[in-house]
């Protein structure tokens, strides 16, 4: 997969976003071992230092943890991932409504449009 | 690291010189064979061509040994390749020494190849005897031994040409200190240095002559009819002077290289 980065935004923040989606969507499941920093850097084609920064950020959010010698793992606490998913979904929904508002559509109308879309 | 540098410098020279070595020996052999065949007109023409080719190749061996040494020196120290040469973890002294030894080796090899070619083409008992007799008439006239004469002649010629090659090296180093017209200045400086070196040797011989009247005679009279001893002394003194000049010039070259280079 090709990852695109917007040069206007710090790269580690964009990596953080990619990683959050990975965790929410279950690409890496609860308690699963994560690839090393170097492997991640190769996957995303970014500087290992930047990758390290993004992972450190994830760790400070308790989404992942480090086992001293074995590397990094996804948190075992499913609630944290669920919470992240919630937050993320709300953000997406908000941005949808904001967009609709710009073109003069209220919440009720917006939902109607959502229902009309076939998957 | 010197041996590694030398390995690649020698490889380069072998690559570029071996064709001349092979061809001069090849034409020496054909010359020999053609001489020994019955002398029809056709064979005579062919053998003349063969002799011509052999001497052309001998001249090429000599000239190319000198030219290639200069080309190699300037290309690996100052042209695109210098980006690699100067970033190798080796000292500037080693860089210079490698070129110096390479030149020396190929100079000797070239010299031997030339002798070998002549030997192959012309050796016969009669020729050998007439050559030795010829040399003997000179040496007895000059009152010195044959081996001494030959040795001194080879040494003086050798040092003289080697000195010229080194003047070229120093010329290249000094020429490349200029920001523009590096090649032109290299040739100009090389030539000036050569003249200076010759004048210094001549001057030193003159100073020596102040203490040795037989040598002084060489400066005073126009005739060859002088003390033969003077030639002996002259040969030895000038050889020593050449050695000193070559050593000093190497030190100057290394000193200049160690001051740093400026590659375009």
């Amino acid at each position, binding site marked *: 997969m090709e990852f695109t*980065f*917007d*040069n*206007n*935004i*710090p*790269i*580690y923040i964009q990596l953080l976003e990619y990683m959050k989606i990975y965790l929410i969507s279950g690409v890496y499941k609860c308690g699963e071992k994560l690839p090393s920093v170097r492997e991640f*850097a*190769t996957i995303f*084609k*970014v*500087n*290992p*230092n*930047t990758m390290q*920064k993004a992972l450190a950020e994830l760790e400070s959010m308790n989404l992942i943890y480090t086992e001293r010698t074995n590397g990094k793992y996804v948190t075992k606490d499913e609630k944290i991932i669920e919470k992240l998913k919630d937050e993320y979904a709300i953000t997406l929904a908000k941005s949808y409504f904001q967009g609709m508002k710009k073109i003069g559509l209220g919440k009720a109308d917006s939902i109607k449009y959502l229902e009309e879309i076939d998957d | *690291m010197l041996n*590694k540098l030398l*390995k*690649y410098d020698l490889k380069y020279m072998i*690559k570029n010189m071996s064709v001349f070595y092979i061809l001069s020996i090849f034409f020496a052999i054909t010359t020999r064979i053609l001489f020994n065949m019955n002398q029809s007109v056709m064979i005579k023409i062919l053998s003349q061509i063969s002799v011509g080719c052999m001497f052309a190749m001998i001249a090429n061996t000599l000239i190319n040994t000198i030219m290639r040494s200069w080309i190699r020196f300037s290309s690996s120290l100052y042209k*695109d*390749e*210098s*980006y*690699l040469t*100067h*970033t*190798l*973890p*080796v*000292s500037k002294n080693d860089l210079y020494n490698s070129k110096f030894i390479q030149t020396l080796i190929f100079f000797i090899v070239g010299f031997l190849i030339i002798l070998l070619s002549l030997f192959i083409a012309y050796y016969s008992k009669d020729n050998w005897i007439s050559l030795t007799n010829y040399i003997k008439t000179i040496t007895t006239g000059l009152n010195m031994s044959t081996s001494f004469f030959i040795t001194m002649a080879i040494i003086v010629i050798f040092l003289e040409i080697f000195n010229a090659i080194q003047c070229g090296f120093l010329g290249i180093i000094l020429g490349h200190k200029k*920001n523009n017209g590096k090649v032109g200045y290299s040739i100009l400086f090389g030539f000036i240095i050569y003249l200076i070196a010759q004048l210094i040797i001549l001057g030193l011989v003159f100073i020596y002559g102040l203490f040795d009247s037989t040598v002084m005679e060489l400066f005073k009279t126009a005739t060859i009819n002088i003390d033969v001893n003077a030639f002996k002394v002259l040969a030895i003194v000038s050889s020593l002077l050449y050695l000193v000049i070559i050593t000093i010039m190497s030190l100057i070259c290394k000193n200049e290289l160690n*001051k*740093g*280079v*400026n*590659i375009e």
Partner: protein
Amino acid sequence: MISMKLLEINNLNKSFDNKQILKDINLNISSGKIIGLLGKNGAGKTTLIKLINDLLTPTSGEILVKGNKIGIESKKIISYLPERTYLNKEMKVSEIIEYFKDFYEDFDDKKAKELLNKLDLNINEHLTKMSKGMQEKVQLVLVMSRKAELYILDEPLGGVDPATRDYILDTILSNFNDNASVIISTHLISDIERILDEVIFIDKGEIVLQSDADKLRNKEKSSIDEIFRRMFKC
């Protein structure tokens, strides 16, 4: 990560014929970073790099690599890619590998062969028979196959197609290790900025700015490329 002075430049000046090319350069570079040396053409990038690699001699000032002056010790740990093709073209690729192995203790010939293999390159071929682009790739592979402490790449992206550019960036990233730093000089900033830890702006022979890349993006709320353009409008 241990922060030690890998490269230290103090009050460096360089002039040619009374024309000053570099003015009072002061620079500190530590290990474990990818650093962009960014400037317009003729800003002095290559001059600075050549001074670090002993191809030019400073007019004044000093350059220290792990505390040593430029010389054998610095050359042992610096792996340098010039902006031109510089290898002896009469040589085969395999001979050049041999050459690097002879002179650089940190050269990994297996790795070099592996990388060249991936390029579908026959190592028994002479350089003369290769396109300029191919020769440049061979040079990059050789330079990155050393386990050096400081890689200096001068304009590695100049005039290459996007596929080659990706290949070059991948090669740099996958061979870069924690103990080493990489200095990449370029005027094509947008191509490369996502892999940079740190940026150095150089203009008219002077260092204008040295900063962490993400911090700079955050502060100016725009890409390095844009910040650079704003700063050095023609």
